[in-house]
């Protein structure tokens, strides 16, 4: 099991605010890891830095042993890191099939899709997330849960080795959450390394075997869900200081 992602001393400042402060961690190939922290902890910024959407101030990001610090987002995607966004985004005037086709046309997606043809490949992805019967519909008329699935389908289209899922459960009903959970588990079984954020502990703790916690941009603890849940700083970050919660 080699190391797939290595993040060292990541720092990002927005004006006077340090959103991510000297943050380091490693992910092994095939792992399933959660990144937790209360709102504003810097989880999304960490994702933005890894995927190249924000420029970091200092630090080093290595993917598969290759330095990817400061690369443009599309280059990082084509190396094998795909991501989804916390707020669902879709190409609103394209139908679902075309939404996924775009990622199948990225240079990394093309390597896989050229054998079967992009259309067939894109519809097979839609089938795997359970949206194939809605392939010709525009995303604007879909319910929120389907849009979350579409996000993941778009990411799968680029044939990722590492998938960064930013709050994939937010705004979903319990049933919809189960659907997404199954989907993510299936992807993990197919060998995709998954790195997932969430600010509600309950959802993530049952899903992942390893959790990294952060608070106010700083690394707090890396361990099993139970260890993390017992950590004093994590509890204070979520529940507040002073009082004892049994």
């Amino acid at each position: 099991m080699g190391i797939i992602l290595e993040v060292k001393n990541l720092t990002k400042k927005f004006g006077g605010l340090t959103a991510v402060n000297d943050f380091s961690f490693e992910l092994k190939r095939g792992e399933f890891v959660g990144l937790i922290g209360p709102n504003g902890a810097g989880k999304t910024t960490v994702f933005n830095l890894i995927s190249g959407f924000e420029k970091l101030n200092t630090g080093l990001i290595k993917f598969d042993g290759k330095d990817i610090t400061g690369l443009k987002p599309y280059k990082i995607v084509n190396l094998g890191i795909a991501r989804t966004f916390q707020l669902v985004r879709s190409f609103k005037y394209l139908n679902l099939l075309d939404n996924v086709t775009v990622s199948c046309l990225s240079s990394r997606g093309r390597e896989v899709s050229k054998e079967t043809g992009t259309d067939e490949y894109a519809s097979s992805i839609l089938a795997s997330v359970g949206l194939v019967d809605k392939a010709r519909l525009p995303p604007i008329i879909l319910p929120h849960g389907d849009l979350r699935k579409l996000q993941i389908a778009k990411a799968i289209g680029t044939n990722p080795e590492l998938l960064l899922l930013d709050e994939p459960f937010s705004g979903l009903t319990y049933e919809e959450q189960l659907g997404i959970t199954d989907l993510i588990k299936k992807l993990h079984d197919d060998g995709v390394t998954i790195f997932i954020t969430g600010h509600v502990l309950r959802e993530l703790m049952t899903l992942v075997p390893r959790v990294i916690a952060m608070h106010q941009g700083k690394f707090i603890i890396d361990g099993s869900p139970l260890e993390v849940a017992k950590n004093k700083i994590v509890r204070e970050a979520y529940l507040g200081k002073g009082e004892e919660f049994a």
Partner: protein
Amino acid sequence: MFKEVRKKVESFPGYLKSWVGTFKGGLTIFCLIILLIIPLLTQNAYYLGEFFTLAMIYAIFAASWDLLAGIAGQVSFGHAIFFAISGYISSAFIVYFGFHWIIALFIGSIIAVVFGLLIAVPCLRLKGPYLALGTMSFGLILFLLFTMGGLSEILGGSGGISKVPPISLNPVIEYIITLFIMVIVFIIIIAIAKSNFGTILKSIRDDERGSDASGINTTKYKIFAFMISGFFAGIAGALFAMHYRGVNPAFFQPLYSFYAIVIAALGGIATIRGSALGAFFFVIVTRIFENIEFFADVEPLFFFSIILIFTIRFAERGIITPAIEQLKDLWDLVLGK
């Protein structure tokens, strides 16, 4: 790849047959037949040239703008740059070097492609209204350069290049050739919009960050969009210069960019086909106003600016596209679908 192309070519006759059967296909063929009949009805140079040939040139110009703004989402207010530069270059090659007009037209359009690249690169980081302002500024800079700058000796100064021979002295032949070029250009632009390349351009229009996250090199595709759009605007510019027997710095003024925008907006942005209908609507209404004495001195864009304001406010999809959809509903009703 080859297999796919062959499959497409083999299935083409059947596809064509079913396409003509659809409302859209039928209407297109109907319009084409009307356009082919028109020269039989009138051989008058004014009616044929100033109504229909001009409308077809504007249609090409507006469709090129629609490809860039409607499909790729890069709203340019400086589209006259490509139009004018190609008009200049092709006229210069015809008048000074005696080239055949087809070759000059291609040279002019290829120079327009180069300008597409030159303008795309500095404007890439600009979005929305800032891109519009940036492209408009380029248009004004070139307008001034051609009016008074050091280019005057080479390219005719403020007088421009005159005595450009038309495609043909016979207005019917000019009409037919322009029609042929227009049909080819529309087929190509619609094919581009429907292709995978077009899907990528639309994804950039809808959500550029999302397109980046899908692994698309958006910079590269935006530059391509500018260059391809420049090429077709260049064809229109060269045809326009030949139609009016000359070219001058006024081609660069923002007015022509606005023509493209007004025409595309009337027809419905991002429809490509709408540009053709919008152009005929625009030219014919303009000519009608010109022939009414009371309005003769008023710049036609005055009316169209007013129409445009109402179009944007009340009919976001253009005037003509919804009208055609109404017609389609009526058609379906008649056929009992």
